[in-house]
């Protein structure tokens, strides 16, 4: 196989089907992976100087994804951490990004998306990337209309469209339109992009 040890992807999920299927998907893309049934199992596996990439579910018994993230950051782990969230867990995802996660993925996800996310997380030097992104984003931010900014703030704070709609007194559909405008204006490819950039500029 063409994998080197530092490219091993560590999958942490309490759901067996999720672990096996993700492992299978990564295998089909030529990537080696190891699975762990819980955050504890992963921490106990004795990997001190860890490379590669960590993909963890956010909702798990005992220690959840965010707690694991905090623990790994505290231990000084340099491997990028990708968080998998369920539907409607955007607030958790935002929190994860603020806490230093490399990316988040909403389940279920496209194979392209997860592979790209892993690729990006493992290859890019996070700091330089965020700097260039930040400059562009700040420039784009100025072109947003006040309403678009309101919607962006709502999204970045992890509020569902319906809640944003109610708070702004507009319909959820209008919120979707604004959200699309914001995405295209700022050049964000995904929600995680948008949130990451917003966090970078300190919105």
């Amino acid at each position, binding site marked *: 196989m063409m994998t080197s040890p530092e490219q091993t992807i560590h999958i942490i999920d309490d759901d067996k*089907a999720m672990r096996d299927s993700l492992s*299978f*998907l990564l295998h*089909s893309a030529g990537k080696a992976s190891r699975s762990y049934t819980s955050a504890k199992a992963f921490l106990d596996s004795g990997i001190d100087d860890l490379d590669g990439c960590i993909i963890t579910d956010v909702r798990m018994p005992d220690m959840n994804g965010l707690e694991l993230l905090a623990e790994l950051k505290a231990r000084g782990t340099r491997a990028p951490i990708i968080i998998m969230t369920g539907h409607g867990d955007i607030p958790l995802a935002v929190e994860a990004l603020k806490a230093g996660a490399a990316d988040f993925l909403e389940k279920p996800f496209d194979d392209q998306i997860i592979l790209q996310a892993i690729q990006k997380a493992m290859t890019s030097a996070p700091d330089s990337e965020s700097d260039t992104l930040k400059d562009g984003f700040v420039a784009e931010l100025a072109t947003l209309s006040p309403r678009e900014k309101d919607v962006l703030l709502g999204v970045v704070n992890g509020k569902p469209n319906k809640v944003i709609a109610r708070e702004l007194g507009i319909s959820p559909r209008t919120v979707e339109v604004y959200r699309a405008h914001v995405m295209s204006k700022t050049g964000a490819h995904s929600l995680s992009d948008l949130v990451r950039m917003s966090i970078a500029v300190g919105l």
Partner: protein
Amino acid sequence: MGNLENPLQLLPVRFGLSHRQRGWALFFLFAAFFIFGTIRAQLSNLAGGDHRYLFFFIPLIIAVCILSGWRFVLVTGLACLIYSELLSPPVWPPRHMTLPHWITVVVFVLTVFSIAIGGTLMQRTERAAILAADQAMDREKRLNAIISTIRDGIIIIDKNAIIQSFSEAAEGLFGYSAQEVIGKSLTVLMPEPMRSQHHNYMQHYFDTGEKRVIGKIRFVPGLRKDGTQFPIELTVGVLNSNGETYFIGFVRDLTEAEANRKRMQDMQAELIHISRLSMLGEMGSALAHELNQPLSAIANYMKGSARLLEAPEPDLSKIRDALTSAGDQALRAGDIIRHLREFVGKGEAALKPENLHQLIEDTGALALVGLSDNGVHLTYKLSPKTKTVMADKVQIQQVLLNLIRNAYESMRDSQKRDLVVSTNLQKSGEIVISVADTGPGLDPEIVNRLFQPFVSTKTESMGVGLSICRTIVEAHGGTIWFETAPEGGAIFKFTLRKPPEGIDDDQP
């Protein structure tokens, strides 16, 4: 002063007089003794010692009798006799006395005795009367103390509804002072329409003797002096005194009780609403999360398999395993949904004959609890032919609750807010229950997907309510559908079955 008054109390002055009166009585008596004694002496000097002058003392004896007791009458009588005899000799030996003289003495003694006896009897009667009056006054004082302590207002009216008595508590409740309302008609304390009806109510009682209010607890509005109304609990009793009829009303302010009750209701409503929302909301969220796992797994297996198939020599056994696993995950998703349906519909509904009208009215009351200031007018048009229905009561209540709440919320911004729940029996034997509102109706776009889960027009809703309604109605062997009212409002209708023949229609 006290030292001077104490000896007065020992003196034989009649019962029931005050200290001051006793003093005067004694003074008067001594004065009378002195005057009568002097005059009697002068009479003897002027006109000689006639023994009949003895009778001159009778008025004095009577005066003593009025002012004192029988003992003092006898003592005075004896004193007068001796004094008079001394002035009209010969006193001793009595054999010198003439017959008329004897008669005079005997008559005088008898007179004194009868005055003493008569006076004592009179005084005894008077004393009893005074005691009774004192006791009555005591009782009244006690009663007044009670009345003024009771928090309920007490109002006494005569047969013409004129206020005779108005307790302190009533003053506090109504804001009138007793002087302001005593002598006025009770109707000043009532708002319309009771005010104009009250006379008829009273007349009805006098004409028929039928007690509509008397002896019962009624909840009526009261009118304060400042024109505000407040809820009161009224209890009325009849009082017959001296041939006159009076009514005594006990008035309890329910403002606080009412506020408590309303708060309870609000809390209850909140609870019902929250439990409903959270049940459906949690269910939706749990469903989404649970389904995400197998769906993600399926996507991963499928996408991975597709990737492997692109290789020149695909590892078919790996792909087969992945596809098998994907199939298992699809089945797992199916299980999750089946679980949810079982949870919502409990599999098969336990159908029993239920009183549909009561079920609808109870649910209507429950659904509107806590929403009463919305101005929605809820009416029922329940066909008598639809009295009994086969239903799982709790589940059908859930359906009705959902439909009525939806109708209610849809009319939030409507001018006209009529909510009609009606039932009728179709020729097919099915009972149709409809919930019609005068809201804006529904977006045609959404109508076709209305009973699917996660479709909602509401901001806080998961959109599972109507899909659960459909699950429940279908478990009852019925159908649920939507119609647009001619005026544009929404009508939700669902069918239920009548009990099989042979089951009594009147069964609750």
